[in-house]
């Protein structure tokens, strides 16, 4: 992850005072002073999100509008996602690619209208992402929303909580968006998230962010959740952390993200690195991101080597840790194509010991997205 240099002053989100007042342990993340956990701790926060509703400050992420003539087709020149097939008010997960088909960042794209998109990108990449988009699409208008906070409300009770405040949001299908007026300000609401649970991401003007967060927290079913549990939740859901599980050295096919590229776009190409990506689709990628379920109790962390039973190194762990919902360690990593089939037995090398693990399909914990009323 491209963290800002240690000497640079950390940026703060509009909820910084709330985090500190709530007893958060703050850490530098992507150049921001962010809460890694609150006094309850990561395990409790994780399980609370799976059980009820967790509120995450993700204001460090980048938000922008991209607008202008032919914005759909123009933006498709940068990403392999099918933005053309996206209905108005619907959201798609896609990736900004480089000329080799490597991933510059992964992101959410909302089609607001035929000439306007809403983009949400990773905090650590946002400056280079926006520079890249502005440079590649000079005919379009990129409005970076640097005065809006982003809150995520995630968990099985998220819809019950948010609809008390904003009636109607419970009917939004997963991966849809709408704008709602609340207390005189416009909220951009997406039914999406990064936990595998039902939930929302809510873009709110900086000035109203703290009061809106406090309104949500007044509901006893909602607790603040830090970046630590955000990481363990997304790992259980099998979702990639940019800079770890995917980066400029991985194509979306290697990253097991082929589901995010439609048939039309696979066939037509027309995105950066399309020839590389199409070759990986046609011939199979030489390596693939896989889920790894460990048999024992010892976790394997990022960087651990993956070996076959003969002791040959066949890959490397990119994310790993203890899965609170499963009460056992899980990991994801890249392995040679020959070892990528679910059920393959491998060893993860931790402190010189070979920990037995099995390749499993994602997600580790079933997702519970709301597909429609």
């Amino acid at each position, binding site marked *: 992850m491209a963290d800002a240099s240690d000497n640079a002053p950390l940026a703060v989100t509009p909820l910084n005072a709330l985090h500190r007042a709530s007893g958060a342990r703050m850490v530098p993340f992507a150049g921001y002073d962010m809460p890694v956990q609150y006094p309850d701790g*990561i*395990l409790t926060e994780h399980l609370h999100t799976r059980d009820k509703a967790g509120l995450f400050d993700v204001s460090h992420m980048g938000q922008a509008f991209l607008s202008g003539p032919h914005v759909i087709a123009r933006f498709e020149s940068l990403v392999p996602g099918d933005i053309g097939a996206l209905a108005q008010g619907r959201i798609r997960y896609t990736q900004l690619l480089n000329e080799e088909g490597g991933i510059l960042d992964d992101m959410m794209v909302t089609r607001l209208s035929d000439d306007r998109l809403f983009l949400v990108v990773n905090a650590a990449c946002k400056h280079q992402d926006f520079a890249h988009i502005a440079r590649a699409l000079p005919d379009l208008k990129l409005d970076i929303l640097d005065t809006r906070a982003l809150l995520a409300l995630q968990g099985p009770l998220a819809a019950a909580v948010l609809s008390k405040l904003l009636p109607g949001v419970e009917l939004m299908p997963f991966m849809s968006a709408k704008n709602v007026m609340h207390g005189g300000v416009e909220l951009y609401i997406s039914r999406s998230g990064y936990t595998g649970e039902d939930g929302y991401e809510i873009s709110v003007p900086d000035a109203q962010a703290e009061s809106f967060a406090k309104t949500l927290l007044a509901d006893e079913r909602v607790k603040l959740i830090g970046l*630590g549990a955000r990481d363990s939740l997304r790992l259980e859901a099998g979702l990639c952390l940019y800079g770890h599980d995917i980066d400029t050295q991985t194509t979306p096919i290697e990253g097991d993200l082929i589901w995010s590229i439609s048939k039309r776009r696979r066939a037509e190409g027309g995105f950066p690195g399309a020839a590389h990506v199409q070759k990986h689709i046609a011939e199979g990628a030489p390596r693939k991101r896989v889920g790894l379920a460990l048999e024992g109790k010892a976790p394997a962390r990022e960087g651990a080597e993956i070996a076959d039973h003969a002791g040959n190194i066949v890959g490397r762990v990119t994310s790993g840790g*203890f899965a609170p919902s499963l009460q056992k360690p899980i990991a994801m990593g890249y392995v040679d194509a020959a070892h990528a089939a679910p059920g393959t037995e491998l060893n993860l090398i931790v402190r010189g010991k070979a920990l037995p693990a099995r390749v499993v399909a994602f997600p580790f914990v079933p997702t519970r997205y709301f597909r429609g009323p």
Partner: protein
Amino acid sequence: MSETRYTKDHEYIRVEGDVGIVGITDFAQSQLGDVVFVELPQAGKVVAKGAEAAVVESVKAASEVYAPVSGEVVDVNGAIEGQPGLVNEDPAGKGWFLKIKIKDKAELSELMDEAAYHAFVSSCS
């Protein structure tokens, strides 16, 4: 009478005769967060002062537990392998890691006493 000494890596050693009971301090467990895995040495292992004696893993990260003094591991706390959360709940009691037969008691004098450790922790946080 037992006395407890502390390392700069936040291990404690409670000396009872020739044996020292080793664990991590309350400050260490609070910094680590929820402990989910502990790897203990075999009894009989000989460790040098400052060498890795055990591993403790929280949800976020793995950390080493270093031997505060040189000696032979004479016992380990199997209970924390089954219930790693004991390290958070009772680090100075049920959450101990291992017992070392102390080779040279002079090494203890290189460690901090309680007052010095408290001052050290205040300077950390």
